[in-house]
């Protein structure tokens, strides 16, 4: 299945794009998206522990199961304020 992935801050810089689509097996967890990004750019590995994931604008655990067309966002440490 396909999910849309939004990238911000350092994750955007590492990916080189602010949005992409990844193809993952049906029933995959949100973490699978991170692994796909690592496959594309190994430097993502170092950042993995500090990246949070949101699905359809809601924070989720890495184990959260995705559905077709979900919007997954990769959220580096936030720094608003």
């Amino acid at each position, binding site marked *: 299945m396909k999910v849309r992935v939004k990238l911000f801050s350092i994750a955007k*810089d590492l990916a080189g794009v602010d949005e992409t689509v990844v193809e993952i097996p049906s029933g995959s967890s949100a973490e699978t998206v991170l692994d796909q990004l690592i496959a594309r750019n190994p430097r993502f590995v170092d950042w993995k522990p500090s990246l949070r994931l949101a699905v359809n604008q809601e924070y989720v655990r890495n184990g959260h199961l995705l559905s077709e067309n979900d919007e997954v966002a990769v959220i580096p440490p*936030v*720094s608003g304020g």
Partner: protein
Amino acid sequence: MVKITDSAINIEKLLVQVTKPESGAVNVFIGTTRNHSHGRKVTGLEYEAYMPMALKTLQELEQDAKARWGLHDVAIVHRVGKVHVGEASVFIAVSSAHRDEAYQASRFLIDQLKQVVPIWKREFFEDGTVEWSLQAHEQKTEIEA
């Protein structure tokens, strides 16, 4: 009221909106762009937001604070895009009958905002470098300006 904007924050107008006839206390927090960071000179900041989620989390914080402290009103405004040194990047105002609730709610909102709202700051340094501020982990990464 929550808002994310690329324009200067109209503080006077927001204060008038937040102050209700039954209010006795208004607490305001303004985060301003400092001219230095970790000992280095900063020339400006830029914020980016994951807009729909940032607005949603801000609205949730607003509702939480209103319910918890019985506030009369809340305004939270955050800038995106370039922000000059000395300008307000974030503005929070809360009104209540008495000052205790106003101080507590205001502090809760800025603390929570800094932890959960998907907004990111890039600092522009005098030497031309640009860095994402990753304060949550006290890490820094440098990219070419």
